[in-house]
């Protein structure tokens, strides 16, 4: 008991941390069987899908005889039932060997992680940063002036943003800025042959290729986050401690930026954490429209071409990330909000 007759409570954060740690460990452990199950299901679906990785060879090469086909089927073990193949795949995957990509003639992991992942990280990462940088101030400003003309305009834009089909937005952007105005390139990552140019010209060229896809990709996230930011900020700004801060005579700027924004950002941080795996998985529609060689496109092509090893390594990588970030988001919640109990 302290002199005012209250129970002396230790700061809640310190108590909850060991429990949060135990929670983290338990969730991580429970994610392991989920991942095995997931890999089994995905492998089964891929294997049940008609066609096999040799289809491209068979139909693309006139000199490819049926004997060749049978020999390769035996060599790659494609005559075995899918559960046996899954078992072999699992054994090798656990040792870090994800098998070769039959289509690209290199290890599947190398193709995904060295040739596709960096491109996707660049595009989706920039899109996410753009969305965040626009959404937070927009949401705050709207929450500070609710029901103003600006607020309604932004709300309308949000509705447009969550409703627009992203590939159609991409096509329209290409038509306006590339076909009609000729300001920006219509697709791909850079003008071929420009790698040898001076660093500056190369950089500008790469940036010009990024503008349209980044805009198309960030539209949805921008809209969702602005909406969330606005409602979160509205909730915070009407609370007592903000009134107290104002009553103390703090400047409005200080109240908004130091007191309100910090609290209002918490739910958004969770949203952002949950969106991070999306950076890695890429966006197949946007990448298709802008001819961007990223992860989404790689997975799409691999599934259509029955390139099992590439599909598996990419899909398992993304699923692992999604599970991991789900757990991290929960843990972050626990660290931030001591009222949440884990048992």
């Amino acid at each position, binding site marked *: 008991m302290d002199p005012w007759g209250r129970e002396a409570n230790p700061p809640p954060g310190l108590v909850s941390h060991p429990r949060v740690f135990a929670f983290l460990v338990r969730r991580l452990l429970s994610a392991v069987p989920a991942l095995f199950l997931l890999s089994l299901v995905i492998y089964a679906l891929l294997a049940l899908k008609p066609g096999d990785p040799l289809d491209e060879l068979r139909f693309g090469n006139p000199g490819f005889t049926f004997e060749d086909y049978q020999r390769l089927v035996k060599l790659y073990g494609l005559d075995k039932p899918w559960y046996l193949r899954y078992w072999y795949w699992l054994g090798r995957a656990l040792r870090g060997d994800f098998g070769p990509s039959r289509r690209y003639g290199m290890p599947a992991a190398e193709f995904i992680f060295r040739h596709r992942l960096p491109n996707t990280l660049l595009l989706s990462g920039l899109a996410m940063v753009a969305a965040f940088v626009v959404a937070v101030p927009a949401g705050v400003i709207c929450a500070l002036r609710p029901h103003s003309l600006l607020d309604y305009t932004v709300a309308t834009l949000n509705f447009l943003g969550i409703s627009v089909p992203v590939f159609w937005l991409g096509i329209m952007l290409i038509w306006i800025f590339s076909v009609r105005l000729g300001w920006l390139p219509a697709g791909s990552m850079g003008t071929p042959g420009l790698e040898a140019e001076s660093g500056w010209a190369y950089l500008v060229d790469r940036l010009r290729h990024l503008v349209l896809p980044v805009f198309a990709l960030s539209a949805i996230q921008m809209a969702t986050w602005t909406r969330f930011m606005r409602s979160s900020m509205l909730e915070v700004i009407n609370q007592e401690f903000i009134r107290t801060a104002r009553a103390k005579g703090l400047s409005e700027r200080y109240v908004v930026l130091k007191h309100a924004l910090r609290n209002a950002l918490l739910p958004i941080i969770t949203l952002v954490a949950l969106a991070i795996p999306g950076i890695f998985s890429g966006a197949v*529609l946007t990448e298709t429209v802008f001819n961007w060689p990223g992860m989404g496109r790689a997975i799409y092509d691999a599934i259509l071409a029955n390139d099992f090893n590439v599909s598996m390594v990419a899909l398992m990588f993304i699923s692992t990330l999604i599970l991991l970030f789900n757990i991290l988001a929960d843990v972050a919640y626990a660290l931030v909000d001591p009222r949440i109990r884990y048992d």
Partner: protein
Amino acid sequence: MPWWTRAFATTERKERSVSAGALAWARLCRHRLAIFGGIVILILAFAAAFAPYISPYDPARSNLRLRFGAPSLKPPPDPRAFPRCTRPRGILGWPCGVHPFGTDDLGRDILTRVLYGGRVSLCVGFTAALGSTLLGGLLGAVAAYVGGWADAGMSRFTDTMLAIPQFPLLLILSGLLASRELPLAVHLSELLGAAKSIVVIVFVITVLSWMPAFRLVRGEVLSLKEREFALAVKAIGASPARIILRHLIPNAFHLLIVQSTLMVGEAILIESGLSFLGLGIQPPAVSWGNMLSRAQEFLYYPNGIYIALFPGIFIFLTVLCFNFVGDGLRDALDPRFAHRV
């Protein structure tokens, strides 16, 4: 009754209590965007349903003399470029030969195809949304009511489903069911013919998007089943199925309505994305998504933009309107949300 009695007789006037439904309806009517959205959706649905009577054309018949026609309200000057019509004039006075949205790369009328495509897109949206919401809602209610390991197992399963990257799985599943080797898929195509891809898409979207409804309803039923009315029904001796279907789900119904409305837009977006990639609705059938699938090739052609512009605008408008209505319904049915968003 003398006038002074009437003037002060407040107690005698019939007090009519307002039902919850009427209150919700009144709140919905105040949401102007929701009303706008609802009216637009009704117009679109009617236009799609009566497409053969509105349009004078066959959506599949090409006219190679009139490829990439510009939108115009006048018939072409050259009579040889006239398309062969199914009727001389649509019911809204749309004469044969006029192409209000222009023609596509095979000379087919774009507005006609948009109307026919609306049938498929709206049907896919409605059915998939209804299916996924009902499936998720039912599973969620059962999981929450039964509790214990069944609940834990189903919640884990839902989390795992949410961890699967959705789009690749959509691709795998639609590829799987579109094949000609799997016995089930062959049986389906014999049964359904050209409509098979539509059924497959509805099924695939339903299977992969019931999770939000599961979570919503599970959370609601967890709290509902402890309330007095649920305990009372249980005490009378009602069976679990009756409690869930007649008492718990109706009380969580507002969540299902809002979720399914928002899901219609979502399903239309998924369908159009898949069809754009060529894995959704297959060509003899028309949908807004598969009208766009080759549109990007024609961007550099004169008048080629209209092939991409109009179907996209209709997807955009429809999804937007469903979002408006969903938002209005949420405000109307769940007053806790009304002041927040």
